[in-house]
């Protein structure tokens, strides 16, 4: 290849790149960062509706809600307002027929620790840390990640996964294809149900606690420590139940194993302290020792 031909190609490339940089510049310029502050009293309610983007919520010690929004384009705007002790945050689409990326809005929100949260996010991700109030999170494809949460936690996803680290309170999580990881859980009430996702539970079995894990297919894994105490009932209609816990016969005469599929019922250590119910249609249930 001669230089004679190479030079025009360089210019051609430059001719393509320069408008590209210009367009990038326009897009960047249209991305907008907004910051809003709201003074609140104890236990405020914060609602967030965002079709596409990341929502990160962290607790802080101030009696204030701080909303930092990064809007992906001029096609969306931030609608944040306060009504009494309630702060509503919403991403509003202001023009029709825009590309999905132009609808993106990312939020970093700081709230008082005792806030109640209501979050709706179609796609992207939801991350909440150290918020102790009740929480209601609904997503379609977005994954949900909670840390050190408490209160009444209600999570519903269509395809998004759910992870909960050191969560307490009352946990109810539902999904169709999302998988769940409940790690170092300190909750007395856990109900987790997914159709095709996996469920991993590794946490405390509190006295009189109730732990119900259910899926259609996939793996349900329950991890226990030698000192834990629970009554367990596990049934997989078409799949398998693998158990490493040394169980004694059930304490309750009306507890019985299903005559269909693989099933087991019994007590681990002092009976009756917690009740564990594991059910799968054709998935695998593993009851395994925690490392």
């Amino acid at each position, binding site marked *: 290849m001669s230089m004679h031909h190479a030079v025009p190609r360089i210019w051609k490339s430059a001719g393509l790149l320069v408008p590209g940089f210009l367009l990038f510049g326009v897009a960047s310029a249209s991305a907008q960062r907004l910051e809003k502050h709201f003074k609140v009293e104890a236990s405020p309610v914060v609602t967030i509706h965002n079709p596409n983007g990341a929502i990160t919520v962290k607790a802080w010690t101030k009696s204030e809600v701080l909303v930092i929004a990064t809007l992906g384009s001029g096609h969306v705007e931030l609608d944040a307002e306060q009504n009494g002790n309630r702060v509503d945050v919403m991403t509003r689409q202001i023009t029709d027929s825009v590309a999905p990326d132009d609808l993106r809005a990312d939020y970093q929100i700081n709230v008082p620790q005792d806030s109640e949260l209501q979050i709706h996010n*179609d796609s992207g991700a939801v991350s909440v840390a150290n918020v102790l109030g009740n929480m209601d999170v609904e997503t379609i494809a977005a994954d949900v990640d909670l840390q050190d949460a408490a209160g009444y936690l209600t999570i519903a996803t269509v395809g998004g996964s759910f992870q909960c680290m050191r969560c307490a309170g009352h946990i109810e999580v539902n999904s169709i294809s999302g998988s769940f990881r409940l790690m170092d859980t300190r909750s007395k009430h856990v109900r987790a149900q997914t159709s*095709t996702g996996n469920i991993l539970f590794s946490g405390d079995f509190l006295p009189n606690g109730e732990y119900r894990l259910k899926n259609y297919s996939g793996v349900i894994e329950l991890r226990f420590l030698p000192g834990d105490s629970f009554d367990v009932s596990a049934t997989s*209609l078409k799949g398998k139940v693998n158990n490493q816990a040394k169980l004694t016969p059930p304490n309750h*005469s009306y*507890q019985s194993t299903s005559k*269909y599929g693989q099933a087991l019922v019994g007590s681990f250590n002092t009976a*009756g302290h917690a*009740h564990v119910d594991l059910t799968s249609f*054709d998935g695998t249930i593993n009851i395994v020792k925690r490392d």
Partner: protein
Amino acid sequence: MAAIDCKQFLNQLDAWMDGQRTADAQAHARDCNVCRSMADDLGSITTAARSLVTEALEPPAHVWTSLRAQLEREGLIREPLVRVNETPERAAAAGSWRRWFGAIPRPALAGAYLAALVAVGVVLSGPISKRVNDYRWIQGTQDSTSPLSAHLNSVEQTTMASFPSSNPAVTAVLHKNMAIVDNYITLCEKSVHDEPQNEVARDYLYEAYQQKADLLAQLNERGD
């Protein structure tokens, strides 16, 4: 530590439901979440039943089906299945349960009693009547799910057609998950057909329909 065990609590359940709660029974209910849950559930059913009597309304068919499914889920109408080997104490307890359900209007209990009678029939009958009973189970399940299935499919068509597709990735996830639920329903129906009296399979089938209804409701809400 409670002074009475679960069996003794069960024997006192009749009195418990009538409001006569001994200190021992209360202590046991505090310590044993299984017995407490059962007593709570029975209390809720009795309260609901009384309100139905008061209102003198005849609930639609799906309410009976839901009630039957709920009773089955709670293990309450499987009782006849174990009556062959039951002890006198359990028979007495079962008698009490039947008395509480006496408060439920007869139409509402028809499904539940039918289920119980079929279950008893299965235990006591031979292969020929088993086929008949299986047929009744299948027919009963189809009768209760077919209208629901048709309605949900109709709603699905209109909902998916009108759902705003501003985000193709989200729309793809919705379609994928709707297909998962539909497949789930198909497999559960097959399982119920193969083992009509399998309460776990029926439970999954009802839940699959519920999941589809929930998903469609969620889509409608977002589409508004």
